[in-house]
């Protein structure tokens, strides 16, 4: 079974630039999550999708971050404009259901450096 795919794996941008990350979840997984993990910290949930609807985006900085999951499969996370404090690893995860019971499977992450 293929795992969660993310691209790019690494990205370096200057502050005030824009960046987008892509995630392809495990086939058949209805729920998709985006996390931000700053070095030395635990992941922070940014947004949760159930199919193509948003379940929770309470911790997403909506003035600069946006995410979509068209057709309920792939998802993109965008930052515009980036700030230095956005430097982190962005992890995508998927699960079979969104009830919280199902195990989450994480992708390899995208390491973003903002200079």
């Amino acid at each position, binding site marked *: 079974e293929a795992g969660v795919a993310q691209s790019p794996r690494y990205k370096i941008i200057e502050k005030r630039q824009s960046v987008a990350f892509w995630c392809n979840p495990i086939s058949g997984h209805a729920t998709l999550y985006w996390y931000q993990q700053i070095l030395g910290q*635990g*992941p922070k*949930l940014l947004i949760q999708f159930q199919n193509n609807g948003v379940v*929770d985006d309470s911790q997403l900085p909506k003035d600069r971050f946006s995410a979509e999951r068209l057709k309920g499969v792939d998802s993109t996370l965008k930052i515009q404009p980036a700030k230095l404090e956005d430097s982190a690893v962005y*992890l995508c995860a998927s699960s079979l259901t969104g009830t*919280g019971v199902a*195990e989450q499977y994480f992708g*390899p992450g995208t390491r973003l450096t903002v200079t």
Partner: protein
Amino acid sequence: ELKVEQNPLFLSMQEGKNYTIYCNYSTTSDRLYWYRQDPGKSLESLFVLLSNGAVKQEGRLMASLDTKARLSTLHITAAVHDLSATYFCAVGNDMRFGAGTRLTVKP
């Protein structure tokens, strides 16, 4: 707001020894997760605990949940070097993570 605290944050163990990592959380929740993260890698799910008194074991790791005390423990038995990693607990529907416990097992 749900707060999740893990301790210790850093743990250095000798091979063959036993130890326990603790995860406390501030508000009621009926679900708790444990993950492992190797340096530079993504997270691997270890356990999903869904009810008070739940206990799960996999190899040298055993996790338990006490929802009344708002406490989960991850017990390591006879540690081996391969267990060196960072261990995270996460709580609730909105997946609040602790800061992680960085475990190093020395020969």
